[in-house]
């Protein structure tokens, strides 16, 4: 009987020990593979790791893949594709609120903003006191720069959009109204001003500097100068544009890369001309990389594993007409014509000879061409530029041109002609609004810029901007063309001319995605001021 009790007592005690064995920390289960925000932001290098993610990767994927070229170039009449619903709508300017590409643009830009807001707020509230104010501000400035770029594109595409500075506030109060477009630009300018003041003059390759911020600020002021104007632009804002863009032109010690053609090679990623380029890496898998080749390349033969060219874009006849006879370097670096030979594409296979018209810019070949074994269709290592020095030169020239119908200002001509001279075309002695638009279109074709230029135009001269779009239709400029290498003649594609109703001033504003309006009915209401 006694022995029995001993056994029972021992077993009972063992059980009690098992219960007591549960330590207080038993319920602490942090992840082993991810850092928590609670134990980060302790050193300047932590801050640098946090801002590094804003330069490329997943949050840029949706906009870069689906929106930048479709909206920037196909919608503006530079690229053509008439199959497959979503891009047909973009091509024919009949975009509805269900359009997937437009949705991707919206979602993608707000993804970027969400990451920026997270970084800014974390640094402001959690950064270790031992980090210097300058380092904190520099990191915040990087994030504000990227955020400004995203809001700038939102304002260009949709006009009035909701401004969000702290995403976690949406948990309690998720439904926001749109903010008026002038306040969105004001917000962008404030972010960029902070960035211009707090970013260094130089930084490691790929990171933004004060010159990036000032160049972007010039471009934003140039845009803002026309908002709500009719006929002429706001001179004060034009002067601000001139000031910041001019500062970059004259004081940054940066220069154009001598060869336009080499500008788009991955080997020249982040060259001094690049003021802000997306920092893509190879081998990062679906949703994290630069997938432009996969969709838009003219042929799978030149791509990694020979996969891609799913929506091979063709240049429009309208774009082709913009190239002067001497403008061969830019033409060949931007679009392919039948018979063009590109030794650097699929070099191991003897190069690539184009068999039709197609896109060249962003097409950098396969993994071997780029010495990048992990490169695949979803991850081209090309760091495509969002802002480059040539763009700022042209912004500067346009800011000087301002409301005039022509200019022969020395500074304007200097920088305008730097762009032309590099391309190997004749320099000019006067600049007009039309010649500036053409120059920008040719220089920056398929870099997502032309739609931005047309929207800027529509702000202060809506009727001519509308006319401009309608002329593209009237002259069948939006259609693709064939090219005969022997006669060197381009023939407009006549099989199917897209007939689209005339553009109106509303054509310059994209519809907010229907899924967003259904989720947040306030988006359908008139926009409200933010400030």
């Amino acid at each position, binding site marked *: 009987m006694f022995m029995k009790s001993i056994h029972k007592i021992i077993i009972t005690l063992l059980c009690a020990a098992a219960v007591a064995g*549960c330590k207080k920390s038993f319920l602490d*289960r*942090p992840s082993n593979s991810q850092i928590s*925000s609670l134990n980060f932001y302790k050193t300047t290098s932590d801050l640098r790791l946090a801002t590094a993610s804003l330069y490329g990767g997943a949050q840029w994927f949706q906009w870069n893949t689906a929106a930048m070229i479709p909206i920037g170039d196909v919608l503006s009449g530079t690229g053509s594709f008439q199959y497959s619903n979503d891009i047909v709508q973009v091509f024919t300017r009949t975009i509805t609120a269900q359009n997937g590409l437009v949705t991707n643009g919206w979602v993608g830009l707000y993804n970027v903003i*969400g990451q920026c807001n997270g970084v800014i707020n974390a640094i402001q509230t959690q950064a270790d006191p031992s980090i210097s104010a300058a380092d904190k501000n520099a990191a915040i400035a990087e994030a504000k720069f990227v955020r400004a770029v995203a809001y700038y594109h939102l304002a260009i595409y949709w006009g009035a959009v909701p401004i969000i500075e702290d995403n976690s506030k949406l948990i309690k109060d998720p*439904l926001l109204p749109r903010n008026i477009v002038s306040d969105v630009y004001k917000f962008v300018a404030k972010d960029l001003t902070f960035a211009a003041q707090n970013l260094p003059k130089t930084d490691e390759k790929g990171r933004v500097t004060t010159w990036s911020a000032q160049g972007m600020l010039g471009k934003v002021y140039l845009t803002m100068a026309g908002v709500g104007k009719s006929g002429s632009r706001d001179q004060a804002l034009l002067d601000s544009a001139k000031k910041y863009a001019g500062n970059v032109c004259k004081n940054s010690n940066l220069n154009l890369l001598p060869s336009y053609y080499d500008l788009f090679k991955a080997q020249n990623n982040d060259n001094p001309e690049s003021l802000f380029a997306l920092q893509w890496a190879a081998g990062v898998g679906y949703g994290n990389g630069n997938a432009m080749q996969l969709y838009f390349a003219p042929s799978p033969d030149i791509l990694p594993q020979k996969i891609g060219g799913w929506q091979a874009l063709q240049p429009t006849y309208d774009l082709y007409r913009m190239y002067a006879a001497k403008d061969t370097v830019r033409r060949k670096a931007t679009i392919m014509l039948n018979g063009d030979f590109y030794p650097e594409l699929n070099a191991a296979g003897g190069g690539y000879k184009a068999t039709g018209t197609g896109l060249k810019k962003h097409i950098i070949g396969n993994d071997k061409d780029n010495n990048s074994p992990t490169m695949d269709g979803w991850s081209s290592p090309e760091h495509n530029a969002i802002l480059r020095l040539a763009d700022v030169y042209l912004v500067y020239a346009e800011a000087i041109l301002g409301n005039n119908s022509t200019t022969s200002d020395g500074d304007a001509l200097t920088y305008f002609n730097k762009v032309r001279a590099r391309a190997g075309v004749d320099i000019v002695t006067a600049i007009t609004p039309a010649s500036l638009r053409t120059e920008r279109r040719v220089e920056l074709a398929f870099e997502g810029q032309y739609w931005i230029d047309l929207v800027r135009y529509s702000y202060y001269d809506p009727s001519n901007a509308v006319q401009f779009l309608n002329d593209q239709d009237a002259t069948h400029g939006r259609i693709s063309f064939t090219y005969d290498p022997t006669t060197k003649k381009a023939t407009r594609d006549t099989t199917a001319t897209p007939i689209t109703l005339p553009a109106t001033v509303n054509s310059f504003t994209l519809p907010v995605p*229907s899924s967003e309006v*259904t989720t947040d*009915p306030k988006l359908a209401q008139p926009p409200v001021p933010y400030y």
Partner: protein
Amino acid sequence: MDKNLQKRVKYQISLIIAGIFLYISAHAQTVNITGKITSSDDGQPIPGVSIKIKGTGLGTVSSIDGSYNIAAEPGKVLVFNFLGYSPREITIKQAGAINVTLNSTSSNLNEVVVIGYAKAPRKDLTGSISSISGASLRQTQPTTFDQALQGKVAGVVVQQVSGQPGGGVSIQIRGVSSITGSNAPLYVIDGIVIPPVGDPGNGSNPLNAINPSEIESVDVLKDASATAIYGSQATNGVVVVTTKRGKAGPPQISYDFYTGYQEIIKRLPTVDLPQFATFINARAVAWGFDARPEFANPQYLGPGTDWQKELFRKAPMMNHTLTINGGDARTQYLLSTSYFNQDGIALGSNFKRYSLRLNLDNKTTDWLKIGTSLQLAHINENVNSTSSSVISTALSITPDVPVLNGDGSFGGVTDPNGWVQPVANPVALAKIVKDQKRRNQIFGNVYAEIQLTKDLSLRNELSGNFDFNTEDRFSPTYSFGKGTPSPNFGSSAAGQNFYIVIRNFLTYNHNFKKFHIDALAGHESQENTFENVSGARRNFPSNNVQAINAGDASTATNSGDNSQSNPTGGSARESWFGRINFSWDDRYLLTGNIRDDGSSNFPTNNRWGTTYSGGFAWKINNEAFLKGVKSINELKLRLGYGLTNNQGIPGNTYVTQLASVTNGLAGTAQFQNNLSNQSVKWEKTDYYNAGIDASFWNGRLGFSLDVYDRETKDLLLQVPLPAYSGTVAGWGPGSMQAPYANVGSLTNKGFDFQINSTNITSKNFSWKTAFTISRNNNKVTYLGAGGTDANLSQKSYVINDIIEKTVVGQPVGEFYGYVFDGIFAKPSDLLNHARPADANGNPYPVSPAGGGIWYGDRMFKDLNGDGIIDSRDQTFLGSPIPKFQYGINNTFNYKNFDLNIFFSGSYGNKVFNQMAIQQNDPQNHTTYFTSVLDYAKLAMVDPAGSSSDVNNVYVTNPNTTIVGVRNDNTNSNNRPNSLMIEDGSFLRCKNITLGYRFSESLLSKIAVKSVRIYANVSNAFIITKYKGMDPEIGSWNPLQAGWDSGYYPQPRVFTIGANITLR
């Protein structure tokens, strides 16, 4: 110490002494009783029957031959108890033999039910618990037991998520309470909690390791007074599975076997080649491009490829189970082994399960009982058909593509003159791609039960689920026409998940005169840990060498995670719990439960949550005024209330998780993976339940009715915020994971009703019917700030728009969109009917040109009457939640034949037929349903007139729903609308089984105890208006319920089988 108290203590001490004296002296006045216990079923002796002298705690157990021997005082009552048999009480008159025949339990009155950490007779329950026997479960020949619950339990909505062999189902007990995708109940198998299931539809259902033929019973705990003892994990109910255990007696060997095949019930009406060519030709005329010269004369083309015919097959399946059970009074065992093999009806799917079970119980000493339940399973699944999406691909690829080219290579999409959507060859994918999942699972518990005193016992339990899994994938180099070509690539993954629970609890029970008490108190800690690693490479030199090592090392990628290092990851929970049951005079029963759970999922300050409940039952049939009424065997009223908590969110959502990512800058960057919510806390549900259980005429008629009201507050869910939040609930490239937050409140009110009746019973013939019906009314009552605009919306990526919306005042996840109003067919339609407007509210013009609305576009109702169609013209289009779910089971016995027919059905739910949208869209570039041939056809009043003059054009088939063949979609014809939402009501003949039991006299000659052979058809037919393959569509996400996006359909299954028991 006051005198009174002293007196009382003295009195008590003397009572105890007297008791001990009585106990010792009992022997002196006893007589010896012997006897044999047999079963009324077959006259066989029953070993292991407990024989107790009522009111003393003394007793014995019958031996192997059923005999027993006990000494007892005349006038005392002997109580004979054995699981599965009705207990009997016999008063001792004199020394001698008392032979006893026990009746096996036929009515559920005497059933024993698992109530959480204990068992109780059904008649003593206060909570709402439904039970199904293993035999009833096996009638439908389920691959996994969860599939078999459908229609068998009132209040439980079971929906198949995937018909893939071994694929999972979604189970909701009494509606949606939480919206986090954790609506699944808690599964407890022999006391082992099965870790929560992520997305078992994808061919990794952890419940599929259990062989249904090993199941003794399944108990479904529904209301809070039943579930509270399981605490926070059980807020959506508990499914308790009990496996068979050994019975004392000579070894009994049984063998169950079945074999059969499965086939697809319905194929979708895709176009054949001449239809496809005719359509493409007509469209090319309208578009002005995309003509295909090879289609010039459709009438001379062959039928083309019927891809569904190529992909779906008659697929065999078979199962063998061998069970041995037996034991003596001290030790009982059950050893079972089984093999199951099922091919899927789609190429590229297969499920094999090898399992071994050992259940052992040993009464080591008179105060110690130990035992184990142990299961080893090996599962080998080919999940390629799901991972390669072959079914949806087969519904995308066009009929002009051959399965094989003339040279024997696989065919692919191609069009030398135009552009084609890059669709792969699904038959080729199913055949050449490998995706093999293997899993070894050790699953079991050990326990020791210590009888500390007569009334008090301590049970210690260690249980665990150890899962070791691998996945081996290889995709060879392929290229099918212009379809997506692919280089070869291989990947290999290995992982292990450990789930361990240590549980200690004390049980006390005591009988006072009229008063009975039993109580339970314990502690439990659970830990979930994992480790996994995977690697992948490309560029294998040959498609025949598939091990990772053979791939190009420079293309290698890898990933891995674990929770084993310090500090740990994974999740943990610690709980304290207690329960007390009082019963008075077998008339009034009272239950109280309390449990305190600490969860690692919440921030430190919100970590602990308390769950409690109370239940009351009144056994009216035991009241004096009903005692004499022999026709009423049971009449019981139950009332229950509880507060339950839910913690069903992933760990670490209260902090921002920074993931290491690579980009073009040097080093790794830190990407914010989620939008954190530091104030996330437990969700709470107030749960009220009332029920009546009744049984009449010795169980010939019985019913059970429950009504309930669940009110959930601080609803915990991953909030689907607008996309401008940079988050997505689910996954989207570059989007953060949406935050988990407590966003609102909702209620579930409803009833469950179950009735069983024996309609006819005679010597040779009997007919029994069981009917269950349940209804749940779900309503959202609060959704935080935002007032009437507040909503939780779910987007369909096929239409790129919201299709399901949850708002206050409506059920969770109502379909939402425009109301289809015919097509623009005549001039008055275009001139008078509201047209969609641009963002500025200007209606799009009437024109056949791009940017205009024209004949053949769809009209939508202008619900707000403002003359234009915009987002404000959307409305609720019905709910995916059934109004009723029901099951009807009829069992007939005639002599040695048995026939079972089981129907299950669902009424009043809507289905979003996402599969049909693209196939009915003339602008689509994949294949079509034949219905597309009825596209709106335009004609001119004056053929010489203008084709852009509104008054000169009309539609010749104005009643069609298919839009015209314009290359413009300004109208957004595929905006979410009522055409996409179909009635999903159905009545399914789930099962028909015909069996024959050989007569015992015949079998006795060959030493076989019993043989039953049977033939079975599962999913024999289905009656429904739904146009897709199968209206039964489960989902783990209630915000996204009822979406038919090309699920693996449930097959019709024919089987024949035998159950053999050796003597």
